[in-house]
């Protein structure tokens, strides 16, 4: 081969990925299925314990809810922002803000929301004076619903960022052609706009699902691990906060990976169905 140095670099990258990404994952799998006496399914069965079962439920609910809110709101905002008559400064403001807010997480984000709609937050008090008692109505910032609201703060901007190129790729001529052929705005969206956007919306949803599912910092900061999510449970095991065996952490991790692979598989299948018309490269 003309460039042995090329193979050195390619080999190094693959080796590093194998050592520090693949090997740890394989280790997890081995750990999850073995104890001192050999192979066992015990730890996997342990996941059926109420505590872990609930953690998975919470994580899934939170991820599905915040991804869905993010996709819908993010797409609407991106669409409004990208209308050609929208002022340019507004467009730039939304774009740059999205880039920041999509990476806003953890304590800073938790604080922002505690001081707004925490039990003593400003908005909570304002609403109370207006006769709406948020907490009396059963809302709590430290619940899955509350977490969904908080997660939306980074999920929506993330969606704005990932969907923008797809919306920009919608050609004005499609809309005009549809209109010219007698279609209403709704008919255009039903027959052309949404089907064309569908693969990107799906991809966006998956990205948001993954981002919420693996998020840890915000939930940790907000609830100090009191609401069981899979990520906080794993962290508890790792840091020795709870008296459980390390294998449980591994089993939980493997569970997360299985969920992610399943969701990704489902989305790939759906995307294939939704994008039969897309040029295959």
């Amino acid at each position: 081969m003309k460039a042995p140095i090329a193979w050195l670099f390619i080999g190094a990258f693959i080796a590093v990925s194998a050592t520090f990404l693949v090997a740890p994952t394989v280790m997890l799998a081995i750990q999850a299925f073995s104890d001192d006496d050999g192979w066992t399914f015990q730890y996997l069965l342990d996941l059926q314990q109420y505590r872990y079962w609930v953690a998975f439920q919470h994580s899934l609910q939170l991820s599905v809810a915040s991804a869905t809110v993010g996709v819908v709101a993010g797409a609407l905002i991106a669409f409004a922002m990208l209308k050609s008559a929208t002022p340019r400064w507004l467009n730039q403001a939304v774009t740059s803000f999205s880039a920041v807010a999509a990476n806003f997480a953890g304590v800073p984000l938790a604080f922002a929301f505690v001081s707004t709609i925490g039990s003593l937050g400003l908005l909570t008090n304002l609403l109370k004076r207006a006769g709406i008692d948020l907490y009396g109505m059963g809302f709590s910032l430290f619940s899955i619903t509350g977490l969904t609201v908080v997660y939306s703060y980074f999920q929506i901007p993330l969606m704005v960022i990932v969907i923008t190129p797809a919306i920009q790729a919608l050609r004005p001529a499609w809309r005009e052609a549809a209109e010219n052929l007698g279609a209403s705005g709704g008919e255009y969206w039903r027959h052309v706009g949404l089907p064309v956007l569908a693969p990107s919306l799906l991809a966006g949803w998956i990205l948001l699902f993954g981002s919420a599912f693996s998020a840890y910092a915000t939930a940790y900061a907000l609830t100090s691990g009191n609401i069981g999510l899979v990520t906080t449970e794993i962290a508890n095991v790792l840091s020795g906060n709870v008296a459980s065996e390390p294998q449980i952490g591994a089993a939980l991790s493997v569970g997360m990976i299985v969920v992610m692979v399943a969701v990704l598989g489902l989305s790939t299948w759906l995307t294939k169905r939704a994008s039969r018309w897309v040029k295959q490269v």
Partner: protein
Amino acid sequence: MATVTVEQVRKSFAGREVLAKLDLVMSEGELVCLLGPSGCGKTTLLRIIAGFISPDAGSVVVAGTNVTHLSPRARRMGMVFQSYSLFPNMTAVENVKFGPRVAGRPKAEQDSRAKELLDLVGLSQHGSKYPHQLSGGQQQRVALARALAVQPQVLLLDEPLSALDAKVRVQLRDEIRRIQRETGVTTVLVTHDQEEALSISDRVAVMNAGRLLQVASPAAIYRDPADGFVARFIGAGAVLPGMAEGQTVRMGALVLPAWAAANHANGAKVELLLRPEVVTFSALDGDVPPGGVAGEVRESVFLGALTRLRMSVAAVPELSIWSDLPSEEAEALKIGRRVVASWDPARPRVVAA
């Protein structure tokens, strides 16, 4: 099928006037080309007719009905866009069916209509392909079928051939003309390509800077342009500025014979139009004969039976005059040869400058 009347239409964008009180009347089944350089307002006019832009003043009347304030979807006009306007998520057949489908036509009618139109544009074999599987020319054929599927009163074509390569462009141009004749639909085509406009239209409307300069048959536009702009924009040849003086046009020391100059007042600023087929070059060795213009051959382009020669005028070297000569005659007139240009004074046109 319908007549189309555009009356006193005006439009400005951000204070800049794009269309200035424009009138255009089209009869039933006519194909009119809006021709002009980019930015002349031709696309704006087409989009006003389609209803995508509303005029600041004036009206658009189709078959006796004022449609100025109707939405595009209520106008029953088929439109073909520059390129890539097919819905990418639908096959060719589905694209063609789209209009009848949103109009709620029965399924059987949608199918038969789509089949009929794909046949008409010669694509019945490709109905189940997606747009990205079709060539540019095929896509534009589908777009044409789709526009016709709503049985439009008026067909609007917005530079439909500009994104295609030369050979496909000519093929599809002839095809559009055939289909337009067969269906008899009143058609407006926007183009900046004069050859396309001249070859396809019943009438050509030449536009510049938001105004209609001339609306006439291709032959009339070519033979008898209304002004210097039209003369320069359409066809080849020299447009020479000068002053009317009896039956001649005077340019400084040069006196060029043109009987048509007599239609203008003595001393009026005019432009003399010399098409290449009007002018003859002959070798010049002695004195310049009366009515001739001396010069030197600068360029020779072989066109087959004819060769187009360009000479620069000896008295005013930056002026050029062209002549189409039979190729065997032109062969003797090499580049650098002193020649004299002459013409039948009855033939050149003279327009007010």
